[in-house]
C-alpha cells in the first residue's frame, strides 16, 4: 500500500514545428525531438513531493510505448520516482494506441501494484484527448479529481482544488483515487546530476499489455490528418454598422 502510480507519456517536444506526413496518415515522428509530456512532468513532480512529505512510500512511473518510452521513464526516475514500468507497445499497435487502451493498462496496473493514488497529466499535448484519467477512474470505479491545481492528502481522503470554467472547485474524494494534473499544480524540478546518476540504478520492469490481460485493439481508425487551414488576412471596418453588415454578408449572423 501507500504507493503512487504516475503515468508519463513520450510526446513530440512542445517546441518542435510538427509536420504532416505526405500521405496524410499522421505526423512526422522520425528524427523529431521527443520529450516527456509537460503535464506528465507536473504529475511526476506532485507525486515526488507527496513522497518527500512522507505521505507515500513509493512512486512508480509507468509509460506505454516502444523502446524509447524507457527514456521518458528514466527522466521520471531522475526526478525522484523509485522505479518504472515499461508496457511495451510497438508498430501499428502503438500508432493506434489511445486513451481507452492506456486506461485499461493503467487500471490493471493500479490494481496489480495496489496503488492508493494514480496521478496523470490532464492531457497529452499531441492528441489533447483529456480522457485517460477519467477513463481510468471509471474502469476502476474510483473517484477522480481532474484539472487539479492543488492536491492535499487528508487522512484517507484527497482534497483537490480543480480549475474549471467558472473558477475553482474544491472537492474531497476517498482514496484510492485518480487525479489529473493541471498547469498550475506545481513547477516541475530540474533533474539534478546526482539524481540522474541514481536513476541509472533504479529498476524498470518490462511487460506487454497481454501480460496484464489487456486487449489493445483500437476501436478507432484515423482516416486523415491535415494541417490547420492557413490563417487568412482579416478585414478592418470603420463602424459598428459596417461590422454588422459584413457579418450578415458572410452569413455568420
Amino acid at each position: 500500500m501507500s504507493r503512487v502510480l504516475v503515468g508519463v507519456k513520450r510526446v513530440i517536444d512542445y517546441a518542435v514545428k510538427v509536420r504532416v506526413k505526405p500521405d496524410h496518415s499522421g505526423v512526422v515522428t522520425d528524427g523529431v525531438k521527443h520529450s516527456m509530456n509537460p503535464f506528465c512532468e507536473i504529475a511526476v513532480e506532485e507525486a515526488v513531493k507527496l513522497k518527500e512529505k512522507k505521505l507515500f512510500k513509493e512512486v512508480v512511473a509507468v509509460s506505454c510505448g516502444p523502446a524509447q518510452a524507457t527514456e521518458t521513464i528514466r527522466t521520471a526516475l531522475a526526478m525522484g520516482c523509485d522505479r518504472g514500468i515499461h508496457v511495451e507497445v510497438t508498430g501499428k499497435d502503438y500508432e493506434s494506441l489511445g486513451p481507452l487502451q492506456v486506461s485499461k493498462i493503467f487500471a490493471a496496473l493500479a490494481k496489480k501494484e495496489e496503488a492508493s493514488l494514480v496521478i496523470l497529466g490532464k492531457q497529452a499535448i499531441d492528441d489533447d484527448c483529456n480522457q485517460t484519467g477519467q477513463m481510468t477512474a471509471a474502469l476502476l470505479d474510483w473517484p477522480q479529481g481532474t484539472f487539479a491545481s492543488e492536491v492535499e492528502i487528508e487522512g484517507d481522503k484527497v482534497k483537490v482544488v480543480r480549475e474549471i470554467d467558472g473558477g475553482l472547485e474544491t472537492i474531497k474524494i476517498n482514496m484510492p483515487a485518480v487525479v489529473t494534473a493541471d498547469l498550475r499544480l506545481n513547477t516541475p524540478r530540474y533533474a539534478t546530476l546526482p539524481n540522474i546518476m541514481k536513476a541509472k540504478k533504479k529498476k524498470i520492469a518490462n511487460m506487454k499489455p497481454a501480460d496484464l490481460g489487456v486487449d489493445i485493439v483500437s476501436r478507432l481508425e484515423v482516416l486523415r490528418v491535415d494541417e490547420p487551414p492557413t490563417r487568412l488576412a482579416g478585414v478592418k471596418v470603420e463602424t459598428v454598422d459596417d461590422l454588422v453588415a459584413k457579418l450578415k454578408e458572410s452569413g455568420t449572423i
Partner: protein
Amino acid sequence: CGCKSFSSLAELPEMHQMMRQTCRDYADRELAPIAGKLDKEHLFPAQQVHELGSMGVMAVEVPEELGGAGMDYLAYALAVEEISRGCGSTGCVVSVNNSLYIGPILKFGTQEQKEQWITPFTTGEKVGCFALSEPGNGSDAGAASTSARQEGDEWVLNGTKAWITNSWDASAVVVFASTDKSLKHKGISAFLVPMPHPGLSLGKKEDKLGIRATSTANIILDDCRIPLGNMLGSPGAGFKIAMQTLDSGRIGIASQALGIAQAALDCAADYAHKRTAFGAPIGKLQAVQFKLADMAVAVESARLLTWKAAMLKDAKKPFTKEAAMAKLAASEAATFCSHQSIQVLGGMGYVTDMPAERHYRDARITEIYEGTSEIQRLVIAGQLLKENAP
C-alpha cells in the same frame, strides 16, 4: 558511464544525454532570458549559481561523498557548454569553480583539505577562484614573483595577482607563490587562502569587453598569513599543479567557447528564416548559407575535439595535446561564429536588442584566458614534435 571508444561519440550514453538535457532546459528557461540583463548591469548570477549548485553542476566531477555529482569529465564538458549557451558569464563561473578551483584540490589535496575546501563549494553557496597570473606575467607563468615565506607555523604571502575571475564573489582562492625564486618555476608552491582574509585585498573590478557578469580583479597579498597546512600539494610542485590544472581547465573553456559559438549560430540560423530580403528569407541566399555551413563545421569539429579530450582524461590517458587543440579550435570557432552571426544579422547584430553582439564580446576572452591561442599552439607543437622525435 564513460565512453570507451570514439565510435560511441556518435551517440552519447543515456546518462550524458539526460544531464545534457537538464542543463539545456535550465539554460533555456533560467539563463537565456536574463543573460542580457546580467551583462548590461555586470550582475553576478548568485541565485542561478545557487540553483546550479543544488543541481550538482558546480561540482560535476567531485565524488558524491564530498558533495559532488560524481560524474565524469565528459559530463562536465557537456554541462559547461549548455550553461554557456544560455549565458557565457555563468558558464565561466561554472568552469572556474569546477576546473580551476576544485580541480587542483581534488587532485592534489589531502582528505582533510578536500573536506574543508571542496565540500562547501559544491552547493553553489560558495565559489572559488584561481590566482596564477600577475601584472608582470601571464603566459610566462614560471616567472611568478608572489612570494611565500615560512614564519613559525604560518606561511606569509606577499605579492599581487592579476586578472582573477570570480575574485569579488569568491570565498577561497588557490594562489601560486614562490618560496625560493632562485629555483625559478621549481620554487613555486600552491596555497589555499580563504576569502575574505586579513592581508588579502581586492583591486578594482575590471571593466571588461565581455563576460561582464563575472568579476575580474587583482588580488593583493600584503603579509597575508595562513596556516602551514594550507599548502596544496608538496613544496615546489606549484608549477606542475598549475600546468596540470590548466590542461583540464582548457576543456572547460573549450566547452564555454562551444556554448557561445552554438548560441551565435542558433541566433543566425533563426534570423535567416525570418528576415526577408529581395523577396525571400535570407536563408535562401547562398552567401548566408555558406556562412552558416562554415559556422556549423567550425562548432561541430571543435566539439568533437573537446569530447575526445574529455574522454581521454576520463580514461586516464594523456590528453594535453588534445585539450590544447580543443581549446584552440573552440575559442577560434567562438570568435568566428559570433563574428559571422553579426554579419548575418546585419544592423540588428550590432544592437543590444539581439544577443549576437553579446556573444561577440563574450567569445573574445576564450582566445586569451587559460592559455592564449599562441600558447596552445606551442603546447600542440611541443607534443607533436615529441611524438615525431627521431
